[in-house]
């Protein structure tokens, strides 16, 4: 309805009514999933892969509200897609969601983004070792700022504590709602350290306001003067990935057709350009490898959420 009304106002600029794909972004406009969905929309249309694409936002509860709606709506419908990712895996666990990723059809993992551990430039903490030493001394005295509880940022803080032989239930994690609230608290020196996607910190790091202690991925990032957590001596690697899924009960041909469209999109130049502009890494993965990866991530996430004490 909202879309129809707005479309009526925007007139000629609006999306046509008939759609090849409707992509649900199970989050409010502006967030990572929304940006992923809208980038897909632009690329699918520009590359002529789909005639028309609509994006629908169904925000709430780490994507589980949108997912629940999607499971019902998209059954046997090869034109409906939903964007999801690592955060959704955690949210399904912490919210005790009645729907989960096994009820839908994973199509492709699309992008990945490394998380960064940062401190304000004025902080006495110079390296990851300094931070770990403080954590071992008194876990409660290290206040971590990041996104909502149970999300990727929180999980990384828990994994770092575990790798440093500190009881992860003792970490002092301060959750901030999306947008820049966590960044403001880090810049203002209200907390000890902060965790978020590296791109959220990039401009502050370049301006010398923040210091990156470590990145969370397997490989260091070009142009960022910081080690991976592994190189810093902590056996932790985590990437916040995003994926696209289709509805339940699709035929093999339908799944193959959608997968082919997604592959055409992900290998196009305009997709690669968009990834570079947003600081995302290409993590395209489909088929059995994807399923295997997904199963591993779900098991690992369940374990760490239990260790932090967020899931019984």
């Amino acid at each position, binding site marked *: *309805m*909202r879309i129809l*009304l*707005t*479309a009526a*106002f*925007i007139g000629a*600029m609006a999306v046509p009514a008939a759609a090849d794909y409707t992509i649900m972004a199970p989050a*409010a*406009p*502006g*967030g990572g999933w*929304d*940006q992923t969905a*809208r980038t897909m929309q*632009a690329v699918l*249309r*520009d590359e002529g892969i789909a005639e028309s694409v609509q994006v629908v*936002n169904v*925000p*709430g*509860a780490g994507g*589980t*509200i949108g997912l*629940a*709606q999607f499971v019902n709506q998209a059954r046997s419908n090869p034109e409906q897609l939903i964007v999801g990712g690592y955060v959704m895996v955690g*949210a399904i666990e*912490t*919210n005790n969601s*009645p729907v989960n990723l096994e009820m839908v059809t994973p199509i492709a993992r699309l992008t990945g983004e490394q998380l960064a551990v940062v401190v304000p430039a004025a902080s006495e903490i110079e390296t990851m070792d300094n931070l770990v030493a403080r954590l071992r001394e008194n876990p*409660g*005295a290290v*206040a971590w700022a990041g996104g*909502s*509880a*149970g*999300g990727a940022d*929180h999980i990384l803080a828990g994994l770092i504590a575990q790798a440093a032989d500190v009881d992860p239930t003792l970490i002092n994690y*301060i*959750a*901030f*709602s*999306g*947008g*820049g*609230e966590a*960044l*403001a*608290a880090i*810049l*203002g020196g*209200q907390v000890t350290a902060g965790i978020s996607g590296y791109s959220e910190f990039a*401009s*502050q790091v*370049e*301006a010398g*306001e923040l210091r990156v202690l470590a990145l969370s991925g397997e490989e260091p990032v070009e142009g960022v003067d910081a080690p991976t957590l592994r190189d810093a001596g902590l056996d932790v690697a985590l990437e916040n990935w995003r994926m696209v899924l289709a509805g339940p009960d699709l035929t093999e041909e339908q799944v193959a057709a959608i997968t082919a469209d997604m592959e055409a999109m992900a290998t196009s130049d305009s997709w690669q350009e968009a990834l570079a*502009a*947003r600081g995302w890494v290409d993590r395209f993965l489909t088929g059995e490898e994807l399923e295997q990866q997904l199963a591993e991530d779900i098991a690992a996430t369940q374990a760490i959420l239990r260790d932090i004490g*967020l899931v019984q």
Partner: protein
Amino acid sequence: MDTFVLLAQGLAGAMEPMNLLYALIGVTIGTAVGVLPGIGPALTVALLLPVTYRLDPGGSLIMFAGIYYGGMYGGSTTSILLNTPGESASIITALEGNKMARAGRGGPALATAAIGSFVAGLLATLALAFVAPWVVRFALSLGPADYFALMVLAFVTVSAALGDSALRGLTALFIGLALATVGIDLQTGQARMTFGIPDLLDGIEVTTLAVALFAVGETLKMAASPSAGAEKIEAVKGSVWMSREDWKRSWKPWLRGTLIGFPIGSMPAGGADVASFLSYSAERSFARHPEEFGNGAIEGVAGPEAANNASAAGTLVPLLTLGLPTTATAAIILAAFQQFGLQPGPLLFANNAELVWSLIASLLVANLMLIVLNLPMIGLWVRLLTIPRHWLYAGILSFATLGTIGANPSVFELGLLLAFGLLGYGLRRFDYPIAPVVVGLILGPLAEQQLRRALAIAQGDPVILVSSPVALVLYGIAIVAVLVPLILRLRGRGKVLAQLASDED
């Protein structure tokens, strides 16, 4: 001074015909989505983002900023005329504005809102150009303890300013606070008060509650006692224009609203709604005729409307200087910057000076366009009220329903709208004030999260709450706000205060 030269260059850029066109498109779309409930500027910009992918970045950003300002303008129109606030920032406007509209003074109410928004937008945009770096440094120094003090101030002044009976006011406030506990707790990720209903996981939508209590509740009241509708709605009594008296009573609230709105908007955890609450409380305490509050005091429209527009400009301070989005719309404008390969933040002013200054200059232009577009429309808008009452209320009801489904397409949300509508009817029927319920729902979660963050950072030591000068000053103002009315009452002016009590819905 350098800033002047840069701003002048920016103005030259903004005056280019293409940029003027983008600004015009932006403010027109913005006003339209502001008037319609359920479609906010955030969604509109999100929808337009892929469309502007190939356009020139400067022009697109100018259009988005126009939508943002336009949305702030449009929101007040339905609040004043139909008592259906489309967004949380215009809830307070409905209190006095709708009373004025029903007394035939809808014209002056809309005019003071429009001119107030213009004045505030103008001053706040200039402030954005000249003092942004200092404001942002101050805003960053605020911690959770300071924000908690700000929330306490807002609670105290708003509950003191709304309604006559403290007991009724507090009862209404606590209904709001109770509703505010519904949903996933941010600090622990656990669901609270959701009774296993997935739709409640994200809490109760503020606009659903506001529209239900204000519009649906009132419609039910009308339907329940059609004969009691002694209070006749007059579309126009006197001039559609503001009288000399109106001007005299409006200009100070405009300035005070700007002064309150701009800094609060630029705080990472501030917000237009908090600014409009504080402005309303301030106007009520400064007013020459406090007895008019609750019956259509023009100050109660002028101040909050100026405050919410100034706060919109304030939001751009952390966005442009730090890359910090503090509202949904700002988050999408940030995404737009990134789409064009621009990174808002400390380096934006250095690396893309031309673009930033033409953006700031075009905000001034957009502001001027808005007032030119909106003032002549006022005569047309107030005619809405000449529609026979049963039709008008039927229209309001469908408008409210449409807006709610539009914002959140679910049957459950519609059920909530009706349930809260019944609650609104009950509150009205038994003379409880409505606004504190909404205020509780908005401020409750903010206050709770900030308090818990402050205590967590200090590892449970409550001294942190009073250990910063800013927090102490805010508590000081809160104490004064409580004590002054008490002293006034002791000095025998109790009658005036008792009159303040009149129901404000």
